[in-house]
């Protein structure tokens, strides 16, 4: 009350004079400090180091290693795994999200799916690999087949375990954004169900769907522990090769090579996330 009184009786300028006002950007300092230490600084180190050689000199040819057939192989492996697991996860996740969204919005089924998706989208790494190993590993409880060790199909199946729930979480708001009134309007104008989806539903959902798929792509790109625990006697994807370059004890450790690979990944993520941001902007128009 006292504050209100002071502002009303015109004491505000005097108050500001006694205590220097704090600029508005100060509140963002913790955020930017955090981003700086955990994102910008490491990215800077990676870029800086990928341009140096092991003896510390400038060595631009390091970056040219990105074009070597071996490095290309790791990136192709990463892209294959990300494409399959994100396309499969997006398709199945979208169907599941639609099925759940078209049910009772306050129903138990929906609440169950949303909370289960929230948990399972975070279920990855060694625990996930071990769960599959026990169930369908070489002496698994359910299956003894070996096709699931084939890269990239087998591991994509395991990735689907966290990709589908993530898709449900990120795609559900878009489906919820489809207003019942639009459906009614198109029906009033004599549109069939197919026409509604063809001319209204699909165009509205496409940007959101593609954006969510890109998010899944980036999610699979950075996943490392799952595949490393599942099969690590060979490097299929870039993060595995980075690990080998950092920890090899047979004389193949090369930090700069690891930095070059990491730089390649930073570029890939930058491309994917730019695409995501553009699609997200387009999708957001309809989600207000």
């Amino acid at each position, binding site marked *: 009350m006292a504050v209100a009184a002071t502002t009303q009786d015109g004491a505000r300028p005097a108050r500001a004079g006694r205590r220097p006002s704090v600029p508005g950007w100060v509140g963002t300092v913790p955020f930017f400090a955090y981003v700086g*230490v*955990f*994102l910008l*600084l*490491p*990215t800077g*180190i*990676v870029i800086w180091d990928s341009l140096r050689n092991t003896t510390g000199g400038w060595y631009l040819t390091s970056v040219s290693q990105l074009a070597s057939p*071996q490095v290309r*192989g790791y990136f192709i492996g990463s892209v294959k795994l990300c494409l399959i697991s994100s396309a499969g996860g997006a398709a199945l996740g979208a169907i599941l999200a639609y099925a759940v969204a078209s049910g009772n919005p306050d129903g138990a089924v929906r609440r169950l799916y949303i909370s289960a998706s929230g948990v399972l989208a975070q279920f990855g790494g060694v625990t996930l690999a071990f769960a599959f*190993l*026990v169930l369908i*590993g*070489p*002496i698994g409880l359910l299956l*003894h087949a*070996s096709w699931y*060790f084939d*890269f990239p199909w087998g591991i994509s199946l395991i990735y689907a375990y966290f990709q589908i729930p993530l898709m449900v979480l990120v795609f559900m708001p878009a489906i919820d954004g489809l207003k019942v009134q639009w459906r009614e309007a198109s029906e009033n104008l004599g549109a069939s169900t197919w026409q509604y989806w063809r001319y209204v539903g699909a165009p509205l959902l496409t940007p959101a769907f593609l954006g969510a798929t890109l*998010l899944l792509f*980036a*999610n699979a790109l*950075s996943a*490392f522990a799952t595949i490393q625990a*599942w*099969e*690590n*006697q*060979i*490097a*299929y994807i870039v*993060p595995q090769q*980075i*690990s*080998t370059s*950092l*920890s*090899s*004890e*047979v*004389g*193949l*450790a090369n930090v700069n090579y*690891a*930095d070059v*690979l*990491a730089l390649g*990944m*930073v570029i890939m*993520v930058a491309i994917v*996330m730019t695409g995501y941001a553009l699609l997200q902007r387009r999708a957001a128009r309809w989600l207000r």
Partner: protein
Amino acid sequence: MKASHKAALAGFVVLAVAAAGCSSSSGGSSSDAKWKTATSAAGGGGMKALITAAKKEGTLNVIALPPTWANYGNIIKTFEAKYGITVNSALPDGTSQQEVDAVKSENGTAKAPDVLDVGMAVALVNTNLFAPYQVSTWSAIPASQKATNGVWVQDYGGYMAVGYSSKFGTITSLNDLLGKKFHNAVALNGNPTSANAALNGVMMASLAEGGSASSIANGVAFFHKLKQAGNFSPVSATGATIKAGTTPVVFNWDYLNLPSYVGVSNWKVFVPSNAVLGGYYAQAINKNAPHPAAARLWEEFLYSQAAAGGQNLWLEGGARPVEQPAMQSNGTINAAAAAKLPAVTGTPVFLSPTQATNAATYLSANWAKAIG
């Protein structure tokens, strides 16, 4: 979402190093300074002085010593009890390269590793980080197994062996492993372009397939055949996968392949007679060790021929200590433990540093192609 794990890791390391930099480093008394450069116990004032100085430091930092590996759990306990020195064991499952990385990144802090146990490939290229030191049993160590000034000294080793579940009967040659009953069963201990034990597993197959220590190509071809037959398991073998039965056939050092080590009673070990491939690890002291006297006392303990000294303790863990031949002649060896080692016939092959490098280079270009 995330830039990359590498980037995140780099950020973490930066913080960790900064934090480590803030912690106090051990105070350097005059006795510390003397032991920092002592190249033998006698040179620093004798064993008694070494023990006193080490006890005063009170702590020893070791790194990458799994408690179940070559009896290290027991060795650390025995050392702690004997001298009243606390052993800080960091990153027990780390690789040799990570040991060296820790020496560099934690240099000058109280947390830096005092002593290392590294593969030869890593030891030979990092000698500038190590302090020369000759233990009192120096003469019992064969000349080919130590650096002339003692910056590295081989400590224990073994032979590459195939460990397997006895449900498969008896394996008499590597080619048996191509048979139908070994479907999805045969595993290495890691990625051979990264882990030394896995590289030697492939090299052992190469020797068995008519290759030489100078070429690992036949071994890669053997694992390719194994993969074609559907018998190669992509799951890296650990004690847990062996116990769970996921990896019932494992290429690994014999001391990591013993029933007592893997904890499975129906476990057999096979060393092909035409492919006896030996490998030794090496000890080294960090030249900037935060506990220089304790580091040197640890080495004296590890190379001691006493009944409860490091050499016999390694032997009890199934590893072959470097002073074993000398101890067999002077009678200090634990004969019961020596008798339990897997029988080996044939002439052992040891990779020279060049041969090991060539093998790694060949693997980096060809392993993924053969197995992928």
